[in-house]
């Protein structure tokens, strides 16, 4: 699914262009470097890392990164090039590198040694480059590679962030320093850690230094786990003294205003847009009906493409250009829906959010943590969401990966967070008739995915040809119902708010025969409806439920009879689990509901063969 990763990356480093600061950076003293040389290991390792954010004002942020890597002895460890990112919004303005080889010789490289390679491709056209230095000689194990780079965060007004994962897979001596001019207020917060900064005041300003001795990426997978669990520092400069730094709500209001300032030139309504909106909504009466019609028009006429020139990763393109080219990304869709709706007197709002389940957005501090934009429209006290991306949305609701996500609704002087509530119509229904065949069950099942559950299938149906669509349905069935399900024939139908799949299939190895008794259970028939892991094993790590949470099963099994009643049995099973994210308060309720549902799911059913 399309999702604007770079929008997220770029939003992290915002601000309007100010002075380019080319301060000279000093490399570490040779002695200090040698102290870091702890003898080569097999893997390369970051043995020193500092990222220093320096604000010169609300609109100027420079980031200096100083890193020392000790080259490992593994064949793959010796680098052939040194690389550094250079983009329009994250502009490289200084680079130095030094190699200190085990034999004591050194090599120096500077900005003028950097060659350039673009990151633009068929899928994304953007002002993004990799700058690189081809190394002159083989880099033996034990070599220390020291690099210093300065980037100007051209769109700095939306804050800065540092996560330990930025260091790589593992590292030592990690520092994150935030420096602000004296008299300015820094808003900062640390997440997933209790580290406190060392605060130092000097003539240059006030510095907040966070230090970690070591870091190693935790690669254990756990389906219920929060994705962003690593220590992370978020920071932002208070815009003015009028903004109370300690008030979360007002801080986000300032953030919203700053983003609206950035996109202000794109928000102008025009007669042309008005004429188009009137044409689209002709014959529509209510406000909701009108914005739905605008949404449908954009879905039908604009295709998803990423062209990020001139800060396009952060700022939408002009609405006229989007409508002329008929392509754009999430911001472009949102802008067009927003402007068309406003031009006929409706009052929608742009909203920033993070698309992807399991990621916690921290509303405690006004720093961009977003990778997606949608439109919010309040109607008769209810929030309606419009997400044009992928051209397959349902008016009023978002895709499944925004279930209960926090969205920052942008409005001049009153931006605020709203939770994108799960649609009450979400449902995965499985019904049909099966007959035993050895240890398998065979027959026809109807699978219905309603509301937010249906949107992914709408997308597949639009994008894929028939053969690929069948393949996708088979793969989905194996991933979400039974890993070995065998599908003989499949058909599907798209409705307004639900997607129906009809399959002739075999579910293998789901019946156990002991004499004339047959045992089965919902978990034998559809084991993939629940994760293999049990959340009770690591209750503190349960952040969300990653699968479908609203499920109804009702399957007739012929040629068997229930021992007591003598009728064909109906395997009937339902559960309703909240999607999360869970807090300490809501987690116990989820675990309780999960346990009850899982108990029913695994309950063995005894039947008698006719």
């Amino acid at each position, binding site marked *: 699914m399309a999702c604007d990763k770079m929008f997220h990356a770029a939003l992290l480093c915002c601000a309007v262009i100010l002075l380019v600061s080319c301060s000279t950076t000093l490399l570490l003293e040779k002695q200090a470097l040698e102290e870091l040389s702890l003898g080569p290991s097999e893997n390369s390792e970051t043995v020193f890392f500092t990222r220093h954010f320096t604000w010169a004002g609300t609109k100027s942020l420079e980031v200096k990164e100083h890193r020392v890597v000790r080259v490992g002895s593994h064949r793959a460890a*010796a680098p052939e090039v040194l690389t550094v990112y250079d983009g329009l919004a994250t502009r490289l303005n200084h680079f130095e590198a030094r190699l200190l080889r085990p034999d004591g010789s050194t090599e120096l490289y500077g900005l003028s040694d950097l060659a350039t390679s673009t990151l633009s491709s068929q899928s994304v056209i953007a002002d993004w480059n990799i700058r690189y230095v081809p190394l002159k000689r083989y880099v033996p194990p034990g070599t220390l590679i020291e690099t210093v780079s300065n980037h100007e965060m051209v769109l700095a007004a939306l804050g800065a962030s540092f996560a330990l994962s930025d260091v790589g897979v593992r590292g030592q001596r990690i520092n994150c320093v935030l420096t602000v001019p004296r008299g300015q207020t820094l808003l900062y917060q640390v997440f997933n850690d209790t580290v406190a900064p060392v605060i130092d005041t000097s003539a240059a300003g006030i510095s907040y230094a966070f230090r970690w001795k070591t870091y190693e990426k935790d690669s254990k997978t756990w389906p219920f786990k929060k994705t962003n669990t690593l220590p992370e520092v978020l920071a932002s400069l208070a815009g003015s003294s009028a903004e109370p730094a300690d008030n979360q709500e007002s801080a986000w209001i300032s953030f919203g205003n700053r983003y609206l300032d950035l996109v202000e030139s794109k928000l102008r309504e025009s007669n042309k847009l008005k004429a188009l909106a009137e044409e689209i909504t002709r014959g529509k009466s209510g406000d909701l009906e009108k914005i739905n019609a605008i949404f449908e028009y954009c879905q039908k006429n604009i295709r998803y493409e990423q*062209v990020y020139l001139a800060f396009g990763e952060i700022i939408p393109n002009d609405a006229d250009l989007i409508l002329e080219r008929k392509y754009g990304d999430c911001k472009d869709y949102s802008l067009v829906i927003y402007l068309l709706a406003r031009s006929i007197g409706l009052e929608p709002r742009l909203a920033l959010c993070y698309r992807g389940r399991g990621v916690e957005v921290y509303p405690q501090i006004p720093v961009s943590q977003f990778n997606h934009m949608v439109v919010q429209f309040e109607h008769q006290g209810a929030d309606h969401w419009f997400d044009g991306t992928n051209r397959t949305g349902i008016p009023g609701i978002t895709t499944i990966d925004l279930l209960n996500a926090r969205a920052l609704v942008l409005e001049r002087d009153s931006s605020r967070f709203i939770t994108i509530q799960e649609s009450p119509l979400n449902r995965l229904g499985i019904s049909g008739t099966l007959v035993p065949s050895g240890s398998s069950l065979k027959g026809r099942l109807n699978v219905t995915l309603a509301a937010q559950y249906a949107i992914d299938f709408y997308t597949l149906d639009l994008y*894929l*040809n028939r053969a690929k669509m069948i393949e996708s349905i088979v793969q989905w069935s194996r991933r979400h119902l039974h890993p070995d399900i065998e599908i003989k024939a499949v058909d599907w139908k798209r409705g307004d708010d639900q997607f129906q799949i009809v399959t002739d299939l075999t579910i*293998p190895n789901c019946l156990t025969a002991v004499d004339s008794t047959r045992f089965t259970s919902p978990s034998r028939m559809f084991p993939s409806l629940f994760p293999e892991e049990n959340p009770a094993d690591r209750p503190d790590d349960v952040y969300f439920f990653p699968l479908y949470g609203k499920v109804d099963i009702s399957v007739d099994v012929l040629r068997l009879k229930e021992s007591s009643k003598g009728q064909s049995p109906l395997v009937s099973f339902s559960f309703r689990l909240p999607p999360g994210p869970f807090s300490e308060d809501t987690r116990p309720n989820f675990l309780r509901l999960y346990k009850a549902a899982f108990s029913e799911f695994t309950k063995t059913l005894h039947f008698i063969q006719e």
Partner: protein
Amino acid sequence: MRTIILFTCFALIPAGSGAQDFLRKLPDRRLSNQITAKTFRNNDAVIILKEQSFKVEPGEVNFKGVTFTGLQTTRTSIILVKVLTEAGVARYASFELTYPEYFGDEIPAGFAARARVQKENDDVIELPEEDVKVIVSRETNDGDPLERKVLFKVPNVTTGDIVQIEYGLTMPLSRSNSGIFFYNAADPVLFSNLAITLPAQTGVTHFSLPPDEVGNPTVEQLSNVYGSGKTYFWSLKNLNGIAEEPFGPPFEDQSLLTAFVTHSHFESKIQTSKAWADLAEEFHKEYLDGKNVSEARIKELGFSTAFRPTTIAGVDSLYAALRRSISLLPHSSLYPRSDDIDEIFERKKGDASDLAYILFRILIQRGLNPQCAWIRDKRNGQYDRQIPSTQWFDRIGVLVALEGKERLYAFDRGIPATYELPWHLRGTNMAVIGKAMVEHRTITTGGFSDRGTLGESHVLYLGSSTTVMDSLQFRTTGWRADQLRSDFYELENSEITERIRTMATDAWMKDIRSLKFNNPGDSTAFQLECEGASKATVEVLDTLMVIKPRNLIFRWLHGHLLSPIRRSHILLPERFNMTATWTIKTPVGFELRSTPSNRSLRDVQNVPASIIYTKSPEGVLVKATLRFEAIAFNVELFPAILRVIDTVSQESEREIVFRRLKR
């Protein structure tokens, strides 16, 4: 005739010049209306016209006020396509092309592109010229372009539209003695045209495969102006789409093609390569008769001046030393850097041909008489000996005859340092290069096994709870081991461990207590041992305990092959055996109640399979085997093969029932 003139006009348009007419008209509605998502329901798009033109002609270049005359090469491409799905829109409405700048900004290549879309209501929208982004994609630190990239998005495209893209690329001071052109594409092609224009008095031979399907070209003399030569033109109709499929023959082997080779040149009368022998002579002179490897470098590899390999084992040790000392780059060129041997040693990195050359030279220096061979990875298709061209090949190998045996040494990330012939060269052809001759020979297995293996072996212990402990061994040789070795080549040990741990937890284990694996770079097999809590399920039903084993290998193969529609024949890398065994220990206090029946499957010739249950006092042994005794299978057998794999997978996971002993 008109066709050819249009090509000429287009070819001379420099980059950034003003708007030009399209070379081809939009298709007739009577034709395009017949192409619908219903009639082509399993396709994303239908290419109405695929047209390629290749032209070598005299041209002038101005460089610092001086005009040079020389040959230039122009490639022109036209595509007219009806898009039927959004995947088709994504494929054809976004354009990317990269081309090299051999002379930087001093003498730039010429590029021009245009595109338009015809809507279903016959509206035509052209791509604005300014939307064509020609960017420097790679440049030196002095800002000299090394490569440019052309990118654009065709506006206003949706399913049912017809997209037309035309572009021409002129490379100044450039000529080519040979070329290979394919007529098919990933999507069906209704008309596929090819025009090759060469300067006057150029001697040329062309070949087409299969000759009866491609037919002979029409030949036209363009004009009588200075240097103008002949154009050879082919036109084919109704070609199948060739989609990439797992275990499918390569595109290059499925597509119809035409190739040309010149044997004398315009004006200068220079004899160009006309046959394999000429190519060999030139290659020898340019690349193989280069510098020796210094004794110091040979010593670095661990060999004294007295070292003289007289056995295959001796050459193997030299091969292994080279592999361990110098890392292989991911891609290879046919042309070894024979003048940069010291640099290769110093950087400890080289490509397959660099290493082959070093091996070749050392063996010569030690008095052996090795030969170099041009080789082609069969995943890229077979070469055709009718078409003498080095373009077929991607690397050289070294052929050594000793002890009455002959062995081809190839350098590949997929094979261990302890030499093994890579599966993708087995049974394929090579061109053995003599000083002025080429001998086409089949690469024999050279004593190596031509059969791969893939096996998992479990010992399952049931405790009092419903947890099953598993002691697992996984082992693979041949093509699958080669794949894993290639995947791991660039990874550090901690990353490999992580990947293997993930594989084990995805496939078999809930929780891993111990994990060991060998270094696949040093041995023929990749094997791992793992102990922990199994994902095999166990259930207690009254007095019964039911356990269901869990396999990886059959499920993996099934998932890899699974596709509702198969278009190409199946071509396996090699013959291979798959075996999964489970030794299930009877839990204390229980006895084995029943096992499923043994099963033998012979539904598909050359794909035998069986599931055998062997009872013993300690428990039961489940053994599932599946063998591929041939490598090529007709596409009609695809459903049956898939069914066999599925049956083995499911049958091997049937439940084993234990009953509580009566007290």
